[in-house]
């Protein structure tokens, strides 16, 4: 057989496995909440089974071996030999986490087995063989301990290979259970001339010298059930054997927690796209081709009689282009459920740890968001959820005392509003304590006094760097690097975050995000002969500044008065090293922008207008440029650079420090 490079399928397998693990986790959480749907157990079993099969195929033996034992446990539950207890769910949830880590490690070419996986493997094995729950209905081979080995007679039907199964792969899987001796019966092999190369003529006698469980041995042949003659007979030990647990080959080297790094480095992404979206695209391209063909007949110019048709064609072209753009953009859009899905588990674990009762209410999971936004919104959301459970929601006793139900509700909701996506995280907990926040802010020197500040302004204070009201630093949150990081992350995505809180009633965080990062709204500003795009989300206002409103400071910096603040002026021709047409401050325009919570004034010659800009990478062919986040193409085909406001703010801060 020719050797196929399996590595090309690794990525697909990895993604599929992750999907499987997600499905498994969701099913387990549903089971944990008392759902009694046998289908859920099947979902868990199937996920584990596919991962095991795939891992064995691709030679990820550590994962295969581990999953195998987890699968055995599930099989006992599925066949009704073991009730679905809390302990089992817990163990399986943790197994899912470990498998995820192991997969990342093996994808990175490292041994998947870690000390953690070995510990958990031992726990799993202990539960499977022996275990806490008594077998409900013992099968024929119940006293598995007494089995010394297995004799397996395996005769595939001639079409077995065509079903995509490969005996050699199954034998490899058997080998993972213990030493295996294989004897081949080739008596059915026809003469070479009569042989059909796709048919299977061989029969095998296998001898497995390990006391594995019957389910484990038969499990290997699950996929070929009905496509072969199979007889599995136990060889009983003469004396009661020393109860060998399934032998699992485990590489001794215990890789430390490099797992997370590995996971992020292998993040190179792909998107799974629904076939209907692709059909839609093909349709649109077809339409576009027709329109184009129609327009080519006007190659030699248009006479008056054809004008109407020509106009019609142009309008059609415009419409198709727009639709095509929307369609292409929609490919990057994924439902927010891919992010939301991790929260039931997180909430469950946190609530358990803190001894609180929490119900998670997820809404609007089908709302679609750009993939790049989705990837980056996860961490801020996790932070908000941790905060809500740790600080927001009270324990059952406190809640009852406050006249609320003892179970707190955490609501996560995503929906469209205008051209943006809104994600809300709300709790019905204690709400923000105005006095505590004001006191803390004064202590930290963020404000001088809380007098005259509106409740909203006070709530905003928690976004200041270094602010945390948690009396004691807990393992979960309260390190004082909380909300300011959330705000910064959201702002990096071109979004905003706001807070609404009623003392005693709860707190709601509202994150507003742009639909996509691939297109931004911006103002075009001219500086000399150059055109720069300033992202609209960063712009506070643009003003004309009189010369007498400007103060020079030591070191060459300039400040101007904007409302009640003095803001530094950044002259774009200066930072970008081009020729500005207007140098006097009153001749040009100052665009007040905000980045990373700091405001600066950008000085440009004039504003040209507002437009949508398709963001193009400058780094693809060139490299990163300080103060520039990318480039776009203007209507006349020339290139305009997009300013990176956060970068300019940092640049200005460094100048000031100088």
């Amino acid at each position, binding site marked *: 057989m020719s050797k196929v490079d399996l590595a090309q399928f690794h990525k697909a397998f990895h993604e599929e496995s992750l999907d499987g693990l997600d499905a498994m986790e969701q099913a387990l959480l549903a089971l944990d909440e008392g759902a009694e749907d046998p289908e859920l157990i099947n979902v868990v079993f199937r996920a584990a089974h596919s991962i095991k099969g795939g891992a064995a195929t691709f030679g990820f033996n550590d994962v295969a071996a581990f999953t195998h034992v987890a699968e055995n446990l599930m099989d006992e539950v599925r066949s009704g030999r073991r009730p679905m207890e809390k302990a089992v769910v817990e163990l399986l949830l943790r197994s899912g986490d470990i498998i995820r880590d192991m997969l990342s490690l093996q994808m990175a070419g490292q041994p998947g087995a870690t000390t953690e996986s070995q510990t958990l493997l031992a726990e799993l094995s202990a539960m499977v063989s022996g275990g806490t729950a008594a077998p409900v209905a013992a099968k024929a081979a119940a006293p598995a301990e007494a089995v010394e080995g297995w004799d397996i007679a395996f005769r595939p039907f001639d079409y077995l290979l065509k079903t995509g199964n490969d005996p050699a792969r199954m034998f490899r899987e058997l080998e993972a259970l213990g030493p295996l001796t294989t004897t081949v019966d080739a008596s059915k092999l026809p003469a070479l001339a009569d042989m059909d190369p796709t048919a299977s003529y061989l029969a095998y006698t296998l001898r497995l010298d390990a006391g594995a469980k019957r389910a484990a041995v038969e499990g290997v042949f699950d996929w070929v059930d009905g496509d072969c003659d199979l007889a599995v007979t136990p060889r009983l030990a003469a004396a009661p054997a020393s109860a060998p647990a399934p032998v699992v080959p485990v590489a001794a080297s215990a890789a430390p927690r490099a797992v997370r790094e590995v996971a992020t480095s292998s993040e190179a992404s792909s998107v799974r796209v629904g076939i209907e979206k692709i059909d839609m695209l093909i349709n649109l391209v077809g339409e576009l081709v027709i329109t184009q063909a129609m327009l080519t007949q006007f190659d030699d110019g248009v006479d008056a009689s054809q004008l109407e048709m020509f106009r019609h064609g142009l309008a059609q072209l415009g419409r198709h282009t727009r639709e095509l753009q929307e369609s292409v953009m929609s490919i990057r859009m994924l439902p927010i459920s891919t992010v939301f899905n991790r929260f039931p588990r997180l909430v469950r674990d946190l609530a358990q740890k803190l001894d609180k009762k929490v119900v998670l209410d997820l809404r609007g999971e089908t709302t679609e968001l750009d993939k790049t936004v989705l990837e980056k919104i996860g961490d801020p959301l996790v932070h908000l959820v941790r905060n809500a459970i740790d600080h927001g929601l009270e324990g059952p006793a406190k809640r009852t005392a406050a006249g609320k139900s003892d179970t707190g509700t955490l609501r996560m909701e995503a929906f469209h509003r205008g051209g943006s996506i809104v994600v809300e995280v709300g709790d019905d907990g204690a709400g923000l304590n105005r006095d505590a926040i004001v006191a803390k802010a004064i202590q930290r020197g963020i404000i001088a006094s809380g007098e005259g500040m509106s409740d909203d302004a006070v709530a905003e204070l928690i976004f200041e760097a270094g602010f945390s009201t948690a009396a004691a630093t807990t393992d979960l949150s309260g390190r004082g690097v909380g909300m300011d990081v959330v705000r910064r992350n959201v702002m990096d995505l071109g979004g905003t975050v706001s807070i609404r809180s009623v003392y005693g009633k709860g707190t709601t965080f509202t994150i507003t995000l742009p639909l996509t990062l691939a297109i931004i709204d911006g103002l075009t500003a001219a500086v000399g002969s150059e055109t720069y795009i300033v992202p609209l989300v960063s712009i506070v206002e643009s003003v004309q500044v009189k010369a007498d409103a400007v103060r020079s400071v030591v070191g060459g910096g300039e400040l101007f008065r904007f409302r009640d603040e003095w803001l530094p002026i950044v002259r774009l021709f200066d930072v970008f*090293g081009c020729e500005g047409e207007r140098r006097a401050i009153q001749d040009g325009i100052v665009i007040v922008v905000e980045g990373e919570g700091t405001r600066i004034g950008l000085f440009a010659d004039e504003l040209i207008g507002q437009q949508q800009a398709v963001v193009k990478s400058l780094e693809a*062919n060139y490299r990163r440029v*300080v103060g520039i986040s990318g*480039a776009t193409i203007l209507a006349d*085909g020339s290139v305009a*650079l997009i300013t990176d406001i956060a970068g300019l703010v940092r640049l200005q801060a*460094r100048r000031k420090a100088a």
Partner: protein
Amino acid sequence: MNQPASNAATAEAAQYLSVNLGNEEYGVDILAVREIRGWTAVTRIPQAPPYVLGVLNLRGAIVPVLDLRLRFGLAREEYTATTVCVIVTVAGRQFGVVVDAVSDVVEVAPDGVRPVPDMGTTVDTEYLKGLTSVGERMVLLLDVDRLLQPQDAQMLDAALAAQETKAVA
């Protein structure tokens, strides 16, 4: 990028696009050449070395353009209708090279390439793969791979770093 060319060269003649720079003629490996364009105005980019003129829009991709004259320390020419921008792809990156003119495509037999003697050509010999003669003309073969990388990448990095430290200092 250069690999296929040199492989082919061992078997048969390699083709080079010959371009003019001042009085000298240079050869660019034709397998690296994507297209030849007339000169169009570019958008300047901040913090770039002087020979990087800016970026242009190549069917939706943002492509940097460098001037081979400035790159090798020659005086800058006026950009005219005959000024040509050769788009090349090296190591997956595209960039444009501005030259005075493009003359033709020359075939160079593998044994026709001679090492460059150190004789004061405009171009530093480290950017040359060798030289060859076509009839009476002499063509210097450019090592396109090295035009923007890695020395230039390093220089660009240095320029960036300088920019940042200048801001700090």
